[in-house]
């Protein structure tokens, strides 16, 4: 059953269009992420679901109930929506103890004291805060405040949990750890999550499905592996993970296989279901390039960056600079003449139509 359904949601601020005809659905028990660069409209969509912003157009359903419809003039206020939400800055009330923060939603429901006590104990146990109940937020670490916000969002047993970049204020180590904890929490409670982030590795790691957004549009929806291996266009390919882009030319097609010429006169057969022909962009992931002494495409190692679990190279081949990642055992040095083979590549159009909502691609698409 769909826990959140958004139909044709648009939000305009004056002339600025923050979200444009966004439609998506979050299933029960699903961890769904909205991923995109800052200003892409992902937070606007989330805030519309929360009722903190009013859509300019469209409909929103939560747990099967219609909470927004511009056509029928429905806009259920935030306080009546069956949602829990965690904010980027946690928004833990500094004048209340952990206990009072977490119990507040139940107090508003005017539940019996005994009921509140039991539920509070459960909620604090769920996030591992039972021993800090009498502390004030100023006495807690960032991670602990985060958990208070989570417990407060969960305690009223909402239909859905909305998370707005909840990990972005934590330091790197804690952020990694919280990824596992959040996912574990979601598995235990079974609550569907709509998660907003600009961090692609976070979205890939935690989501069951994710939607990549740019300039107010949803570009692609899918499971993390699907989006990583089959990006819908160059923007997604560039935004998710690392990607090398090299200009090329399609010489021939047979079935789903295209023969492309690039990096001088090198040829490669690529699986490609599009109908591209002629000039194109060849995209290759750094881990899909194998360096060797004898590889057919000759190159020269310009930079070698050791990063522990792998080694990051920048190599120059026929005027283009490519990023290559190898296992930590690679012994190549800067300045060395090598060769490489490409195990897997993707093809994209040189110009992507703006009706797909593609903004300028960050960074340089063509290496020089």
């Amino acid at each position, binding site marked *: 059953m769909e826990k959140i359904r958004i139909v044709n949601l648009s939000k305009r601020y004056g002339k600025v269009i923050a979200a444009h005809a966004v439609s998506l659905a979050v299933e029960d028990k699903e961890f769904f992420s909205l991923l995109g660069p800052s200003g892409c409209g992902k937070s606007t969509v989330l805030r519309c679901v929360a009722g903190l912003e009013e859509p300019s157009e469209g409909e929103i359903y939560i747990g099967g109930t219609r909470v927004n419809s511009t056509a029928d003039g429905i806009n259920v*206020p935030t*306080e009546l929506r069956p949602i829990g939400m965690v*904010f980027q800055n946690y*928004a*833990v009330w*500094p004048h209340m103890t952990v206990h009072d923060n977490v119990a507040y*939603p139940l107090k508003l429901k005017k539940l019996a004291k005994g009921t509140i006590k039991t539920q509070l104990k459960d909620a604090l146990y769920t996030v591992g805060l039972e021993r800090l109940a009498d502390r004030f937020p100023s006495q807690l670490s960032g991670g602990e405040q985060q958990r208070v916000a989570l417990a407060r969002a969960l305690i009223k047993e909402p239909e859905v949990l909305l998370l707005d970049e909840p990990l972005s204020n934590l330091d790197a180590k804690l952020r990694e750890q919280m990824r596992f904890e959040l996912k574990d929490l979601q598995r235990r409670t079974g609550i569907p999550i709509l998660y907003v982030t600009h961090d692609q590795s976070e979205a890939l790691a935690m989501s069951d499905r994710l939607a990549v957004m740019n300039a107010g549009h949803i570009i692609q929806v899918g499971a993390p592996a699907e989006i990583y291996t089959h990006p819908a266009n160059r923007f997604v390919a560039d935004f998710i993970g690392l990607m090398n882009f090299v200009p090329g030319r399609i010489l021939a097609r047979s079935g789903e296989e295209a023969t492309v010429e690039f990096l001088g006169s090198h040829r490669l057969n690529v699986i490609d279901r599009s109908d591209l022909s002629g000039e194109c962009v060849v995209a290759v992931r750094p881990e899909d390039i194998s360096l060797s002494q004898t590889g057919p495409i000759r190159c020269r190692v310009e930079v070698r960056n050791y990063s522990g679990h792998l080694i990051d190279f920048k190599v120059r081949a026929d005027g283009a600079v490519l990023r290559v990642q190898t296992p930590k055992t690679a012994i190549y040095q800067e300045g060395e003449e090598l060769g490489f083979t490409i195990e897997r590549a993707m093809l994209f159009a040189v110009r992507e139509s703006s009706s797909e909502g593609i903004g300028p691609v960050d960074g340089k698409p063509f290496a020089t």
Partner: protein
Amino acid sequence: MTTAKIDRRYLLMMAIGLFILLVILYPLWQVFFRSFVDAGVFSLKSYRKVFSYPSYYRALFNSLWVSAATGALCMLLGTLLAFLVVRTDLPLKKTLRSLLVLPYALPSFFAAIAWIQLLGPQGYLARIFFHFSGWDTAPWNIYSAGGIVFVLTVHYFILVFITVAGALERMDASLEEAARGSGANTFQIMSKITLPLVLPAILAGGLLAFIGALANFGIPALLGMRARFFVLTTSIYYALAIPDFGLATALSSMLVLVALVSMAFQFGIQKGESKYTVISGKAVHPSELKLRAIKYPLFFGTTLLVFFISIIPIFSMFLTALFHYWGAPLAAANLTLGNFVYILKLEAGRRAIVNSILLAALAATITMFVGVVVSYMHVKAKLTGSRMLDFFATIPYAVPHTVMAIAMILAWAKPPLSLYGTLWIILAAYLAIYLPFAVRTTHATLQQVHDSLEEAARVSGAKLFPRLRDIILPLARPGMIAGWILVFMPALRELTVSILLYTHRTETIGVVVYNMQDAGYREIAAALASIVMVLLIVGNVVIRKLTGGVTGF
């Protein structure tokens, strides 16, 4: 349920709108309207009167030149002191700075009284001067235009000091270092780089001092009326005593006009100043100028100045309160606590204290409540129309208090609802004049409460009143208490509005001090003023503690 929620917030806004209409807009409209009406028809008679009688147009002229002279002197004194205290290695800068601000924490008519005690014909400093010089008349006269300008300057220079000191502190030190790197010497840097950069701040501060002097009543009333030297505010007081409402409203409209024009200029300058990116909000530490050989002479001079303008007047007030009679030789036998006992036993004195405390507490409470609602609607809820409300609530900031008092008489001292002779009309005037302060402090306080804290309450299921009660108000409490005291303290010693609106039984502390001084009972006036001064200083300490030194004087 959607409509019910919106209605409730707009209902609250309408109630506040009605309040602002009754205590601000309608009374001010009455002033403007009445200045153009004679015997029920449109007429310029009142304005013609102002410009055909020398005593009236001279008042306008006097107001302009006295305020201009005050503004200029304040710019000189304030800028000089700001430079010394912010940009040099003068010893004890922090102490000097907090002492400099002291005179402004006390009401201006207290300053006038203190300086009469010091420089008047029988004054302490005058007597010391006679003793050493052998003269028997002083070469100065405190009851004169010069005396007014002097006391106004001592009272208002701090406005220039604060704006210039702020600009100097925010100035990027690298600008001066760049000049030094180009081979400029200290004097060249100061005159070619630093001074031009802080010039907008100097002008803005000078205009603030000009506006303050223009609107001041206590100082020209105590120092000028005896010498038949009138300015606009005292002429309005005089016109009301006649009473000639046409004349009073015409003079008032002109006073408001001058104040508004100056305020527009001041606003323009400050807006222009913020366009300079060089003076940023960043906490950079400009280099300190080494004073070298002139360090101790300057320190001595500054300390002496601070001693004279900050400490001596307060000391003089306490001393006067202790004398059996004004002018008695300084000897232990002539000292007494009798004046304090007298004023506390005097029925009018006791009544004034009760009235003032009641009025100040009510004014502080009501304006803070209205201020919170206005600011909440504007800063947090961002409702349509809240901007307008905010603007109307801050209008009295530009209106001299004398004019506000007349506005109350015109609006609320006539049938069917005559409040004249009651405390309510004084309260209405207090509400109008202190509302802008309340709105400003609650604005700042609510802006510090992050939006997500309220949003988290909404997500938790809290409707408007629960989230105001449980989240917004508790978080804004420290700022609101400070704001409450910031209204309570000036209201406690208010003079300008009270002197025009009081009748028998509705005296305030300010009125009693003024009348006692005016009638020659200076030691009694000083005793009551001393009690108030202690309260004000204690209040200031409390505010500074509450806000961590951000607000308060």
